[in-house]
């Protein structure tokens, strides 16, 4: 009885090993939740085009993707933020050499409930809201309601980008932080849902998540500048102030299958998919 069970176990272990081991024409892509839909769309089209190849795409957050790349448990990391110096140092220590490829742009929308009067904000006002210096909508021309600040969790590239570029205004010495009372939600969808149901909430996420249940706010660099809606054309022409690159990281320059996939992502066909998933293409 024991022997039989053990035998089956061993066989199972071998089966899984050999299945995972047939890595010649399969690649693992991991990382940013913002990019996971895009990655999946790419993988589907790519596998239609090259039926012999297999591509697995999983999310988890930019940090998760980069740490998998560092530990060599994925071939391509998707990231919605630049790799940190610390991560590069760690990667080099493990013999991994991260190579950055910009594949798309993403405009970050700041959204409020459609019942909220406020429809435009400056970057300073945004920083004030998210650091907790502005706490009531009345200070911004809205109703007398306490502002409920929503943010993504710290494993999100969107969180890091928003902190560095909006709260800290690209100043590396700045010590600004999200207000501690900010609600940390685990996904962009959770933020979308909370904003849809809460008239005093404000949150941020990639443009692709905007629906009729949330109202995107027009943003201006400062009081004198033009207020710009988050829209694809405004991100392309650089007028919209909060947009970020979406990146792929590979170990060294891409080669073989990884190169084939990256080339596909950057091709006309791949960039059309970028547009279809509500991001902004880098190659026109």
């Amino acid at each position, binding site marked *: 009885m024991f022997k039989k069970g053990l035998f089956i176990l061993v066989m199972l272990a071998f089966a899984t090993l050999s299945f995972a081991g047939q890595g010649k024409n399969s690649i693992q892509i991991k990382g940013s939740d913002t990019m996971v839909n895009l990655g999946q769309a790419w993988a589907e089209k790519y596998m239609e085009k090259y039926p012999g190849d297999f591509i697995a795409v999983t999310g*988890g*957050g930019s*940090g*998760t993707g980069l*740490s998998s790349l*560092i*530990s060599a448990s994925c071939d391509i990391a998707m990231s919605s933020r630049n790799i*940190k110096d*610390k*991560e590069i140092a*760690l990667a080099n220590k493990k013999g991994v050499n991260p190579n950055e490829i910009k594949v798309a742009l993403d405009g970050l929308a700041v959204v409020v409930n459609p019942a909220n009067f406020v429809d435009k904000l400056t970057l300073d006002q945004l920083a004030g809201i998210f650091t907790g210096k502005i706490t009531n909508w009345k200070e911004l021309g809205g109703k007398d*309601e*306490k*502002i*409920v600040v929503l943010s993504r*969790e*710290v*494993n*999100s590239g969107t969180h*890091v980008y928003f902190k560095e570029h909006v709260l800290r205004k690209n100043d590396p010495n700045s*010590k600004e*932080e999200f207000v*501690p*009372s*900010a*609600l*940390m*939600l*685990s996904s962009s969808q959770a933020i979308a849902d*909370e904003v849809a*149901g*809460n008239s*005093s*909430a404000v949150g941020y996420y990639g443009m692709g998540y905007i629906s009729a249940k949330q109202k995107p706010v027009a943003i201006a660099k400062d009081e004198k500048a033009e207020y710009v809606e988050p829209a694809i054309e405004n991100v392309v022409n650089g007028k919209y102030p909060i947009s970020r690159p979406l990146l792929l990281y590979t170990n060294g320059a891409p080669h073989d299958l990884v190169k084939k996939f990256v080339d596909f992502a950057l091709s006309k066909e791949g960039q059309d998919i970028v547009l279809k998933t509500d991001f902004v293409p880098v190659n026109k």
Partner: protein
Amino acid sequence: MWITVKDMRKFKEFIIEKLILICGIASIFFVVLIFLFLLKEGFSVFNTVSPFNFLFGKSWYPISEPPQLGILPLILGSLLVTLGAAIISIPIGVGCAIYIAEVVPGKIKEILKAGIELLAAIPSVVLGFIGMVTLVPLVKNVFHLPTGLTALSGSIMLAFMAMPTIVSIAEDALYSIPKTYKEGALALGATHWQTIWRVMLPAASSGILAAIMLGIGRVIGETMAVMMITGNAAVIPDSILAPVRTLTATIAAEMGEAVVGSEHYFALFAVGIVLFVISFIINVTADLCLHKRQ
């Protein structure tokens, strides 16, 4: 012939005994390994932050440069949610146990017991999801709050999770009281309620206490549901109607980002130690209660 069969039997028993011994040792061995690993990884955080500042620091900004690793808001968040869940689940759970063990007639008893077991079978992520779409808007509207993602929402949902544990163990404790206690009380002219309140409950008190402790232990270690409905704001809560961030939700939400070997990574392990110590204390208390009873 006889001897060989006997020998075979002896041999078989010898093998089985040793196998069971290995199973027994293995579980202890794994616990010790896990604990050592937790200690080794967790204590490294004290190279960057003193234990005092770690336990009593008021800000949790783990990915900033330099990181601020104060977990007081997280500890208080966990304790507040647990306290709330205890206040809700203990009276209902113990009441339910008394009803099942003493009051209810046979058939309904079986239905009730099955129902409570069913409650235990609901995965916590499902409870969290249900809480998110039903309870959170309700809490927001009833109390006119800016958001319904609060400690109270978490407490109510966790009370549901603690209840099955409390009910089934407390019911066991009541059931195992010798029949003579009850019969004696009734024979002396006590009413049914007087018997329950003055005789049964005191006799089963240590078992009920153990049930409560185990229920609380379940609550403090719960992760998924609290992460979904408590708002996760790392701020010291000023009331049960404020958002909180618990120890468990912090580990679950952040371990994906933490670069292996960074202060953040070690800090999350240290949070794990704090959690381990808290549930250890609770479990030992429950154990002491149970042994006192025997």
